[in-house]
């Protein structure tokens, strides 16, 4: 380290001498800032300060724009500008000068320039583009300081589009002899990884080198990248576990230089970082967890010093221990740690202890019992943050038995809370709890308390929630509440009671003072009264109408609430009295300025007069049949075409309009070549910006509506709708409930003996000591809070949804269904598959069968859609080859035709004959199509699983082969596939019963969210006649290219689509030079490997199009520039361009 300092210091004298020149100018400049500061401190009012700063800014502005200002003065001006900005006054005029200073200044001036840039600008600021050249120049500088400055600014902000321009230079710095530079380079790459992960994908092995760097600083920097990457994909880095463990061991053992110590704790923040990484790696993975037990134990032991920072490390350790695969003695130690935290008199530690407990309780709710008295104390703690953390903890341990008490505590807190943000958060939680438990009418009494989370409780709790939350509530809470009311629970009678109770309580509320009720609540009330007030026999519609009318007349009622009330009235206006009220009200509002209100008033007027129509439009007790919504608005097509015929301009989505507007003004964002020459040639090229101009002209000349473009935009909108509302209703709500259920379940991993032990030791705690009066009260509270958790009580065992019975149930269900499926197995399939099997497995080919196979496969080949065959010529030829091979009676070789080109991932070595056998089991309609190699998935005692994917024109079909390799029959085979990124739907299952036969499962796959590779996780379970059921897990990975199909569009269509798409990526690729015209050669390679459609090639530019199944287009624009290929991709789907760029790179590298 010291030699660096020396080196850098020797580079400095010139700067220093420049800098330390005493002179009048300097003195006056420093005192200028001094004067400013002095001036500001002397002022008394904010107004005067404002005036002074504006004067100051004006003078700075004048000076910076003057051509005579030297760099030195500029530097001083920048400092003043920074000061003004830090006081909250914008000095945006100085931004450009900061960049100029960084560009033109030397040494210190440059440094100030960079500093100002990093303080002034943000990631998306357009001026940042101007910095690129400077950074590029400084990176190439021989002056270490300049390189450092450039790397520092890069690691803070850099325009995403320009990364390719400097990436090679930064990469090169990874090998720099100076550790400072290496470290800064790693941090710069970390930044790149954060903003554009796909662009640094190729340097992953260099990160590994950085991790092994001899300088601890560089290693530490690389941990940031690893933490990020492991968070995204822990599976990919399991092999590094041992390295992280050994690093942590060295750190804990004090092997780092003493410089890294903080209060004689070795590199605490580094330790915390490492433990976090380990906990991510060891999650749900016993093998990996085992590697780290020792070092965690060591960390726990070493951190027994009495200092805050060691507590911070302990906290991280505890979290880790409870995250990874459990080990009993570590758990014990961790639990002890938590105990120490929670009981500590130091408030900060108590807080941390509660936080740890909240986290741990998800895995082991028993621990809450041990600390129940502390938790009760914290519940009444004067410090609000402690209180809130405790509520958070209770929220996690809620069950049917304690929900009433916990909700009561939360509402208590809500009444006191003044902070909007807390209120919103807590209201959401209470609503979630209340909605989770109302149906479980488990009544039980404990001592003097009777808690029954029933209808009344539910409605009353929601009433409190609504009235407390004010208007800050998230709109999905009333939505889901109403949904719950309308859908009801299991029993019809219960539903009726619930609704009736709601109606009654709302009528009472409306009769009282309504002034304080929030609008949301009034809307809910209106709806419920409109829908269900008929349930109440003594309540007359006229009374309700009167109440609603009163609501309408109030001044505070918002117009949205008024329209809810009007809608409710529409449902209720029955009888003569009702009609007259309705007429009266509708007359008032029919001339309202608010169009929605006017609309509702019109509806009310018409429907109140025509009772038949009303009964049809608003049927009472409608069975909630899902309404079909035509989201594409196709019923408007006629209207649109008429309007277009009459000369109206075609509709353009907002982002397109904006883009066209900005086109004229904004800087060209197209990347220049690597060397960024500022020359005439590049200017002229940038001017041409082909796709945009081309499409603009085509958009003007072409006919008004473009089909494919329209299709694209409607699907986009539809997606947005789908995310929130599904067929079953509100989706997010369901997910959150499911999550909460999972949270509630204690870790199934803990061994039973251990659980019993914990129970044994804790269950006695509350009863052991005799306690004074107030204590008893607390204990009672405690017992009501923690009731469901103590497993001594039989009631609670019944009420609790433990993981074990649930699991058992699920398994049993699966078995019964799969056994049903086995029985349904069709004979014919088995027959054909076994014959073909025999045929191809070294049996002499029977001529008749051969020809049959032959015919079927060739027929299917000819049926191949035109687009696919044309795009993938090799596939076609090889399919033919297969046929001739079959004829030539060399079956063992034939099945494995070289279609790997569809899948660039070379898989592990295959058992060739087996592959051949399996391929023959492919269903006839798939046999001629392009497919990947058959890869073994997993091997069990009795079963071998293999899979491949077959490319059809409109889908990808995943074929899973299950071979019974043993001599005993296997039953109840059940296969479950799941993936975050893919939608998996089962096409067909043909289970095999016989020994040594093959079962084939077909699944069709669609991409939900694009990623470079998409992975499927699967579980197979089966049973042998004598023995226990067995399960195994496997995964299957497909490249995104498998889902890519050519998209045939014309150049005009391409142009229009180009403008409509919002997600884009740009990058430079290498050209292929093998004799032909480079652009054509490269495009041909890409077309073949990725299945693209070449729309048109003009001179040095080419445009291509493809789609992601189903119908998610991506457009590509290629241009040869300075010996490289500049690519620009656009798509309506986020991430798709990035992923495709990656595959383009791969395809060209492999070529």
């Amino acid at each position, binding site marked *: 380290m010291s030699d660096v300092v020396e080196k850098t210091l020797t580079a400095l004298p010139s700067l220093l001498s420049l800098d330390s020149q005493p002179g009048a100018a300097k003195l006056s400049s420093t005192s200028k800032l*001094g004067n400013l500061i002095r001036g500001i401190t002397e002022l008394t009012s904010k107004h005067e300060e404002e005036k002074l700063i504006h004067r100051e800014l004006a003078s700075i502005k004048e000076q910076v724009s003057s051509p005579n200002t030297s760099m030195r003065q500029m530097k001083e001006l920048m400092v003043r500008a920074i000061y003004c900005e830090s006081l909250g006054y914008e000095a945006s005029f100085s931004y450009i000068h900061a960049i100029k200073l960084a560009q033109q200044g030397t040494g*210190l001036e440059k440094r100030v320039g960079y500093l100002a840039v990093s303080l002034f600008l943000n990631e998306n600021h357009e001026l940042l583009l101007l910095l690129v050249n400077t950074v590029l120049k400084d990176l190439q500088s021989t002056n270490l*300081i300049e390189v450092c400055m450039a790397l520092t600014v890069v690691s803070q902000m850099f325009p995403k589009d320009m990364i390719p321009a400097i990436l090679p230079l930064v990469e090169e710095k990874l090998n720099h002899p100076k550790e400072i530079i290496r470290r800064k380079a790693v941090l710069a790459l970390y930044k790149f990884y954060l903003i554009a992960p796909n662009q640094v994908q190729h340097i992953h092995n260099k990160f590994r080198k950085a991790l092994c760097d001899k300088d601890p600083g560089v290693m530490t920097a690389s941990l940031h990248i690893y933490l990020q990457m492991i968070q995204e994909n822990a599976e990919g880095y399991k092999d590094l576990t041992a390295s992280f463990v050994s690093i942590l061991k060295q750190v804990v053992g004090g092997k780092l230089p*003493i410089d890294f110590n*903080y209060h004689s704790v070795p590199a605490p923040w580094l330790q915390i*970082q490492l433990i976090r990484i380990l906990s991510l790696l060891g999650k749900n993975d016993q093998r990996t967890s085992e590697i780290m037990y020792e070092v965690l134990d060591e960390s726990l032991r070493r951190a027994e010093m009495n200092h805050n920072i060691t507590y911070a490390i302990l906290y991280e350790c505890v979290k880790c221990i409870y995250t990874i695969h459990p080990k009993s003695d570590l758990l014990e130690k961790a639990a002890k740690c938590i105990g120490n935290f929670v009981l500590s008199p130091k408030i900060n530690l108590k807080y941390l202890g509660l936080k740890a407990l909240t986290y741990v309780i998800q895995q082991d709710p028993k621990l809450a019992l041990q600390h129940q008295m502390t938790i009760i104390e914290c519940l009444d703690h004067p410090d609000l943050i402690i209180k809130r953390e405790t509520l958070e903890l209770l929220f996690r341990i809620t069950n049917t038995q304690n929900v009433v008490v916990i909700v009561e505590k939360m509402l208590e807190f809500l009444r006191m809370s003044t902070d909007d943000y807390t209120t919103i958060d807590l209201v959401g939680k209470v609503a979630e709890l209340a909605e989770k438990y109302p149906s479980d009418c488990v009544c039980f009494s404990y001592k003097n308390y009777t808690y029954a989370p029933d209808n009344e409780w539910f409605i009353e709790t929601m009433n409190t929630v609504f009235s407390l939350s004010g208007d800050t509530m998230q709109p999905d809470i009333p939505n889901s509440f109403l949904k719950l009311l309308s859908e009801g629970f299991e029993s019809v009678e219960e539903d009726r009671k619930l609704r009736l109770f709601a109606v009654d309580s709302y009528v009472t509320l409306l009769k009282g003072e309504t002034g304080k009720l929030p609008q949301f609540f009034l809307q809910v009330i209106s709806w419920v009264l409109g829908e269900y007030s008929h349930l109440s026999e003594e309540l007359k519609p006229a009374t309700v109408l009167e109440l609603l009318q009163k609501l309408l007349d109030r001044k505070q009622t918002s117009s949205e609430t008024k329209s809810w009330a009007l809608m409710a009235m529409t449902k209720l206006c029955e009888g003569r009295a009702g009609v007259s009220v309705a007429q009266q009200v509708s007359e008032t509002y029919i001339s309202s300025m608010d169009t929605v209100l006017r609309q509702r008033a019109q509806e009310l007027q018409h429907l109140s007069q025509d009772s038949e129509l009303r009964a049809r439009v608003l049927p009472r007790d409608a069975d909630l049949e899902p309404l079909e919504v035509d989201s594409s608005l196709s019923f408007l097509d006629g209207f649109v075409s008429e309007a277009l015929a009459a000369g109206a301009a075609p509709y353009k989505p907002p982002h397109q309009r904006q883009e066209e507007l900005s086109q004229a003004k904004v800087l060209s964002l197209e990347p220049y070549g690597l060397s960024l020459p500022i020359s005439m040639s590049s200017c002229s090229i940038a001017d041409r910006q082909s796709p945009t101009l081309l499409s603009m002209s085509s958009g003007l000349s072409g006919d008004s509506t473009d089909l494919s473009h329209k299709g694209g935009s409607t699907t986009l909108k539809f997606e947005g709708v789908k995310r929130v509302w599904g067929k079953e209703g509100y989706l997010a709500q369901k997910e959150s409930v499911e999550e909460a259920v999972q949270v509630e379940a204690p870790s199934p991993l803990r061994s039973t003996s251990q659980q019993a032990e914990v129970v044994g030791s804790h269950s006695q705690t509350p009863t052991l000591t005799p306690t004074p009066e107030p204590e008893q009260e607390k204990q009672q509270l405690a017992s009501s809070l923690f009731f469901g958790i103590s497993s001594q009580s039989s009631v609670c065992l019944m009420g609790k949804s433990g993981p074990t019975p649930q699991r058992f149930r699920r398994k049993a269900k699966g078995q019964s269904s799969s056994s049903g499926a086995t029985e349904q197995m069709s004979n014919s399939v088995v027959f054909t598959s076994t014959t073909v099997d025999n045929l191809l497995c070294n049996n002499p080919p029977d001529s008749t069968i051969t020809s049959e196979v032959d015919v079927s496969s060739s027929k299917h080949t000819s049926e191949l859609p035109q687009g696919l065959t044309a795009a993938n010529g090799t596939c076609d030829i090889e399919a033919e080859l297969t046929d001739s091979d079959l004829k030539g009676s060399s079956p063992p070789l034939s099945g494995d035709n070289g279609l790997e080109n569809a899948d660039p991932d070379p898989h592990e070595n295959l058992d060739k004959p087996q592959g051949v056998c399996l391929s023959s089991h492919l269903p006839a309609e798939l046999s001629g199509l392009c497919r990947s190699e058959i890869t073994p998935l997993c091997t069990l005692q009795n079963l071998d699983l293999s899979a491949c994917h077959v490319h059809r024109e409109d889908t990808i079909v995943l074929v899973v082969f299950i071979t019974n390799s043993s001599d005993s029959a296997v039953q109840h085979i059940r296969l479950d596939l799941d993936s975050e990124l893919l939608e998996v739907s089962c096409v067909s299952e043909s289970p095999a019963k016989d020994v040594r036969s093959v079962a084939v499962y077909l699944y069709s796959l669609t991409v939900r969210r694009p990623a470079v590779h998409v992975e499927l996780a699967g579980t197979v379970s089966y049973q042998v006649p004598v023995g226990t059921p067995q399960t195994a897990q496997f995964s299957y990975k497909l490249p995104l290219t498998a889902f890519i199909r050519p998209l045939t569009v014309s150049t005009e269509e391409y142009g229009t689509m180009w403008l409509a798409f919002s997600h884009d990526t740009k990058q430079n690729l290498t050209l292929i030079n093998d004799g032909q015209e480079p652009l054509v050669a490269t495009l041909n390679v890409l077309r073949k490997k990725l299945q693209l459609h070449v729309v048109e090639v003009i001179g040095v530019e080419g445009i291509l199009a493809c789609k992601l199944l189903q119908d998610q287009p991506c457009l590509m624009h290629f241009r040869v520039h300075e010996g490289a290929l500049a690519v620009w991709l656009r798509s309506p789907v986020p991430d798709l361009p990035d992923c495709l760029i990656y595959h383009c790179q791969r395809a060209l590298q492999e070529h």
Partner: protein
Amino acid sequence: MIKFVLMVNRQGQTRLSRYYERVEVTRRAALEADVVRCCLSRKKEQCSFVDHRDVRLVYRQYAALYIVVGVTDTENELSIYELIHNFVEVLDKYFSRVSELDVSFSGRHTTSICVVMRPCISHTLYCSPSDKAPPPAIHLDKSSAPYHSKSSFSVTIISTFFNVNIILTQFDGFRLS
């Protein structure tokens, strides 16, 4: 993740701010005022962590100066709490002339150090008070900006963030030397 670092005095004036997330200049003043109110209203016996909207604030008081760090709620609060102290120790060391608490812990030319600190704790601030040799991270910073030379620049930047009352004397002192 660290979202921002603030140094404010008891009067609620911001001495230094560094944001790692985009916050408009015009919105900063309001945010800082809220944050300061949040922290100043707390008593000694209350814990050093407090929520402000979706940001968790970790603060530490040094005489009249508060250092407040805004973090996400996945962060280990206690480690941030100690990071603040580490930061202050580094400042103290960096400007080795200072001994009094008041003076040493008032804001100094900390921007550039903050620049090195990033949203995730980088290795920047390792420094133990017992070391004779200045810690590596600070070297780095010095090497890229030689402020220790008491050049005019260091004075200007430093003075920007001085605690009001001490600034001027300090400032004059620098100028005289």
